[in-house]
């Protein structure tokens, strides 16, 4: 049983699957990229698409380069007979949140959550500038690396890190990714030249394509479908102001608040899967969550080893859950982010049954 139960129903992640994350997948449509992952996660539980109570996905039309892009991947789910289904134009971590709420209402006992993104068809740095305030900021085309560099510079100026410490974050992440067959960058990766100072290549995430899927289940269904369910004992998400001048870029109060609401601070965790696409963002998130060296951070390699847009946050929840499934963790925190410089953050606390 979960140690705490602040909600009407106990809900767990019971299965997780992800694609191999690759620099390009020119030969695959999004549907072809998603389908094996859907089949794998369903096979892990023995459920069929038609037996799932609710389905929810996360993706972005801007990456696909066309309106209503998610309608095609729904075909891959095999939504016949018709299913109860929804979609968020966000990272799949928020699709998981919507599905979790649906199960809390009692309208569903199980949910399939999936997310995907192909960054390879365009320049993702340019594409992401279109996320910015369309009147004042977007016309200047500041790209995602430049904005992250502003944040890194603020941290260094505040004496909270230095370039060597940032390089160590990247090196540790890619070393951890050696054990992750799905990761895009594994092992020793050169720190490289400045992309935008003070961030070097090694401080930045790889650009790539990928997909992920998770199955959620409530109470007895979870116990039936999974030997050691990863109970979601808390989940919450918060957004901050968009304007970078309105925020302290060295801190992440929305992460801290979401963590507080999710009960993260009630007991220690052994594992943290943080969605920190840039090395400097791990520094900010560690501070917001008060993580010490005793916590294993990003044993999967994190977003510095594979950062498929719109799926990378869901993958953090999946990786944390998978560690609980195989007994490598008892209490883990998973984090997802969206927007420039950690604007929006989701925190989930996952726990396994104690022996």
């Amino acid at each position, binding site marked *: 049983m979960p140690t705490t139960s*602040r*909600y*009407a129903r106990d809900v767990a992640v019971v299965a997780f699957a992800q694609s191999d994350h690759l620099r390009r997948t020119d030969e695959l*449509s999004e549907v072809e990229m998603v389908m094996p992952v859907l089949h794998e996660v369903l096979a892990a539980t023995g459920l069929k698409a038609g037996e799932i109570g609710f*389905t929810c996905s996360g993706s*972005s*039309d*801007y990456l696909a*380069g*066309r*309106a*209503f892009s*998610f*309608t*095609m991947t*729904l*075909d891959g789910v*095999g*939504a*016949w*007979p*018709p*299913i*109860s*289904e*929804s*979609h*968020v*134009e*966000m990272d799949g971590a*928020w699709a998981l*949140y*919507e599905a979790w*709420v649906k199960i*809390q*209402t*009692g*309208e569903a006992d199980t949910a399939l959550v999936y997310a995907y993104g192909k960054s390879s068809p365009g320049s993702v740095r340019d594409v*992401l500038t*279109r*996320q910015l*305030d*369309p009147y004042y900021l*977007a016309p200047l085309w500041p790209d995602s690396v430049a904005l992250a560099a502003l944040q890194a510079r603020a941290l260094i100026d505040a004496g909270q890190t230095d370039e060597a410490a940032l390089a160590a974050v990247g090196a540790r992440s890619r070393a951890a990714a050696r054990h992750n067959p799905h990761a895009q960058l594994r092992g020793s990766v050169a720190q490289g030249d400045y992309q935008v100072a003070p961030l070097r290549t090694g401080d930045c995430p790889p650009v790539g394509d990928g997909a992920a899927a998770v199955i959620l289940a409530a109470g007895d269904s979870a116990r039936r479908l999974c030997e050691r369910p990863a109970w979601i004992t808390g989940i*919450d*998400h*918060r*957004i*901050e*102001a*968009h*304007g970078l001048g*309105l925020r302290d870029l060295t801190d992440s*109060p*929305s992460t801290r*608040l979401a963590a507080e609401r999710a009960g993260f601070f009630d007991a220690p965790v052994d594992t943290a899967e943080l969605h920190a696409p840039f090395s400097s963002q791990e520094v900010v998130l560690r501070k917001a969550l008060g993580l010490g060296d005793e916590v294993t951070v990003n044993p999967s390699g994190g977003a510095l080893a594979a950062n498929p847009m719109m799926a990378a946050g869901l993958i953090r929840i999946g990786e944390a859950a998978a560690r609980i499934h195989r007994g490598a963790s008892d209490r883990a925190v998973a984090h997802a982010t*969206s*927007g420039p410089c950690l*604007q*929006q953050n989701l925190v989930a606390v996952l726990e396994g049954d104690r022996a």
Partner: protein
Amino acid sequence: MSTSGKEPVAVVGVGQTKHVAARHDVSIAGLVREAAVRALADAELTWADIDAVVIGKAPDFFEGVMMPELYLADALGAVGKPMLRVHTAGSVGGSTALVASGLVAARVHRTVLTLAFEKQSESNAMWGLSLPVPFQQPLLAGAGGFFAPHVRAYMRRTGAPDTVGSLVAYKDRRNALKNPYAHLHEHDITLEKVQASPMLWDPIRYSETCPSSDGACAMVLTDRAGAARAPKAPAWLHGGAMRSEPTLFAGKDFVSPQAGKDCAADVYRQAGITDPRREIDAVEMYVPFSWYEPMWLENLGFAEEGEGWKLTEAGVTELDGDLPVNPSGGVLSTNPIGASGMIRFAEAALQVRGRAGEHQVPNARRAMGHAYGGGAQFFSMWLVGAEPPTS
């Protein structure tokens, strides 16, 4: 914490902008804030009373902003709060309201602001919908090009006379004259003018299509305690559901999709409705092309298969008929795409709150809001009542 069923959900505030072809006077943020402020004023609440924001809109290409909720967080008072962004194509306004209602029903939050918008003047919706995709028809020319063959199929299947579509358009445009927020106010509308308008996608004429609008719609949803404090009569949620089916497959019935039938059946089951034609007093139905009124009358169970057009022809769906459909003027008079579904849901709520003004259906106790999207594959519906749900 109680595990005995869901928390009842009430609509205590509704706000809309005056929908127009182009709001050059406001930014996207200004537009959404206008609707949100009006919904809060209706509920007599402030930003501080809102626990979470759920926002929806149709494709980001319509405004050219990727995931605009990030930029809109400040304008919608969401800073420090949870904010979710829903996108389920044309049905999104309805699904957004349902996702927001789920937060209250699950007792995760007590009072939620939900909002949907489209500022179509920022781009061209028809071509925004017509980006080429490998292995698909190279040019569908917007939604009309996609839906016209299915209207033809309906006419052939049911033997409906050519005149039915123009009757719907004429009715909805007249209803819109009674709705101060409606986009099209055609004071000189006549049936002859509708019938004489140019043919766009045979059999769909210009006056039988929806306009492109700028606009936003917002609602404040709350729990039983919040409803007890509300200054005005709330609308109570009696049933809500979403259903999806694939875009393209051999067995798909584009005239009356199974997902629409299943979605309506789920809503009626939740609301205890056994005879929708008799038990529902007003319907706000997603009718972007006039022929979809008779088509959806059948799909939603208000008429037997093949009989929908007879209700329209007999005047049953007129504002003073016994099953008024789109008293607000509907999507045919106002279409900020991402908001259109939420406007249907909100107008249904206004009807049972007795706050629909000149287009009020007398003594409406139960009303339905309906939305659909994609290739007639995504459906979201809710049924609201003047009384709280009994179970």
